[in-house]
């Protein structure tokens, strides 16, 4: 059974921003047997290709977009992508994950990972349309906010292109800047700044291919049960109703709510910040990421 029958695309896109050359390579099936998901794949690439003591902002710091074998299928919560690199904030391993709609599009474009090396002399956008890959100048959107950049890229390439972009903070190498797919973010560790140092303003990506599983009927049954478990979960219901902030009340009760730079663990007005308070005052509608019941 090949990797392609088991949810993988068996293809990695390698992009060198210095030479503007791109190539593709397959996955090593023996190695894949030892790796779990996109996280494992990204860690593997970073392990293989990063140089010790390299500055996160140097062209030598590899940057990997990753997805997993379940991405693009009906498995719940698999509609995500990850970014793996060396963090400018911690100077160590960074992986950060993001919902939205970029992940599965990368799979349908035919890639399990996109490895970005080097740095561009001028701001560019990487345009991937299935197997076709090219660069376009991004001088006109360099300095634009993530919202504006997204809008312009979608306007330029079409609504069927998914985008990831960085904003002015990442361009200025802020160590806590993120990478955005629409309003979803890979926010941890300053991954945005690494792309900023490479002057990669973003990626516009379209994919019209397929993801195969070797036992479609069995997969369908397992996915149905997984969704049922989510439907029958109170934790998930609380996420639906009140978002991630639903745990705030508990955290405050436990004395672990960082207050005034963690001088105290309880905040006297925490009830105004809980998920319940937010949903009561500010919620207008729920929007979901790809295939996700935890909107």
């Amino acid at each position, binding site marked *: 059974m090949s990797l392609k029958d088991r949810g993988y695309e068996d293809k990695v896109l390698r992009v060198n921003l210095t030479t503007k050359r791109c190539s593709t390579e397959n996955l090593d099936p023996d190695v894949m047997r030892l790796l779990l998901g996109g996280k494992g794949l990204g860690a593997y690439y970073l392990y293989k290709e990063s140089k010790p003591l390299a500055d996160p902002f140097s062209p030598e710091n590899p940057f990997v977009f990753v997805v997993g074998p379940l991405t693009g299928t009906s498995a719940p919560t698999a509609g995500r992508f990850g970014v793996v690199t060396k963090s400018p904030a911690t100077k160590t391993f960074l992986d950060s994950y993001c919902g939205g709609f970029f992940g599965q599009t990368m799979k349908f474009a035919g890639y399990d990972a996109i490895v970005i090396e080097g740095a561009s002399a001028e701001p560019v956008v990487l345009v991937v349309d299935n197997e076709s890959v090219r660069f376009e100048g991004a001088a006109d959107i360099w300095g634009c906010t993530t919202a504006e950049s997204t809008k312009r890229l979608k306007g330029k390439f079409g609504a069927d292109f998914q985008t990831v972009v960085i904003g002015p903070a990442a361009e200025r190498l802020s160590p806590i800047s993120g990478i955005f797919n629409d309003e979803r973010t890979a926010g941890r560790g300053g991954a945005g700044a690494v792309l900023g140092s490479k002057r990669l303003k973003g990626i516009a990506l379209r994919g019209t291919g397929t993801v195969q*599983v070797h036992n479609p009927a069995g997969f369908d049954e397992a996915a149905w*049960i997984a969704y049922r478990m989510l439907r029958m979960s109170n934790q998930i219901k*609380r996420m639906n109703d009140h978002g991630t902030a639903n745990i705030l009340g508990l955290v405050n009760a436990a004395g672990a709510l960082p207050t005034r730079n963690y001088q105290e663990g309880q905040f006297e007005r925490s009830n105004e910040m809980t998920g319940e308070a937010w949903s009561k005052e500010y919620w*207008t509608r729920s929007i979901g990421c790809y295939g996700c019941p935890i909107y």
Partner: protein
Amino acid sequence: MPIVAGKTVRLNRLFNPKDGRAVCVAADHGWMSDPTPNVIELKRILREVVSGGADGILVSFGTALRMGSLFEGKNAPALLIRADWMNLPRLGGSNVSNVLPAVNFKKKATSCAKDALLVGASAITIYYFIGYSDEFEAINIEQAADFAKECRKIGLPLIIEPMAVGAGVTGVNVTEILIASARIAVEIGADALKIPYTNDVRSFKKLVDEAGVPVLVLGGAKSDDPRDALELADEALRAGARGTVFGRNVTKAKDPRKMVADVCALVHHGRSVDEVLGARVKQRGRLRPIAANCTGCQLCEIACVHYHSSAFDQDSHRLRIEYKFRPDEPRLSKPIVCPLCEKCVEACNEGALTIGPEGYLVLDRGRCTSCGDCVPGCPLGLISLDSNAMPVFCDLCEGSPQCVAWCKPHAIVLAPPKGDRKNVS
């Protein structure tokens, strides 16, 4: 001096002697959780549960004292008493909004087994928590052992409710832990078990077989779709469970009586879930979008693709989600689904595309000439041609539309066919 006879007679009160099975309802939430409406309106709900035909109801002492008349009569449900107390529902974000959330897990033996005899109980139920910490598990075992000893003395059946909770429990080991906990509970002295489903028939069968005492599966949190609890019960029964103890899936249901009656149909009358719900298989109707509920997640598209193809893709779906972006507003979305307007049927000159006898579009491949007129014929643009130039269109998944089944926020529903008031899904 063991009084085994007492346990036997009392268990017969609970498990129907004809099939050895029991449909029970757990109504002890007010004793341990925040009082939600299903707690405040308990009396009305329990009357409906009784009329639905429940074989047993699990309540606290207070409820037994206040609503004891529900348990009078030969055909009335057996009284099951919750003999301990714990704070798990208020621990972390595991339940509805907790007014006084707890951080440390606590369980106490708040009564003795003899107390349950005073109110005419047929059994007591106690928890056994495993996975939180060794000390906590030891407390649980000690309390269970005390109850077991006493129950042996007085002939009162002991139902133990093992639960795997805590840092030691992960998605990987939860099934294994549950299976072990079931057997451990029996070793300690359980006469029957109330236990969560392992979400897999094979593993639950192992649990049931290795336990060797009657196993009642519990329902857990309530799903918006009543089908979920029934499917879960059905699977557990196939794995050898002797019945169910549903709590919130019944007490929070729109129609508790019906929910109990439906479970009884599964457990005691051998009906299938489809038969009980009269739904999902070969149902006639039209797809109807409810845009206000749509979160734009595209799960309907994924389900549509996967029903018709073994692979997954983003293009071959026969319905679509349309998005609208307004400045400073969250993204709007709505499903564009086939309303069976039949314009494609009109556009087809060969009579190849028609509405079949079961109420959905069918293609006569012999008649189709791949002229492609059906494509522009669809005012919603939902028809395309595949690589063999054959039309790809919404066929309601041959009567069981997957988009409806998989959409959690109910943004696509099956509405009655045109001119037909019956068959609402």
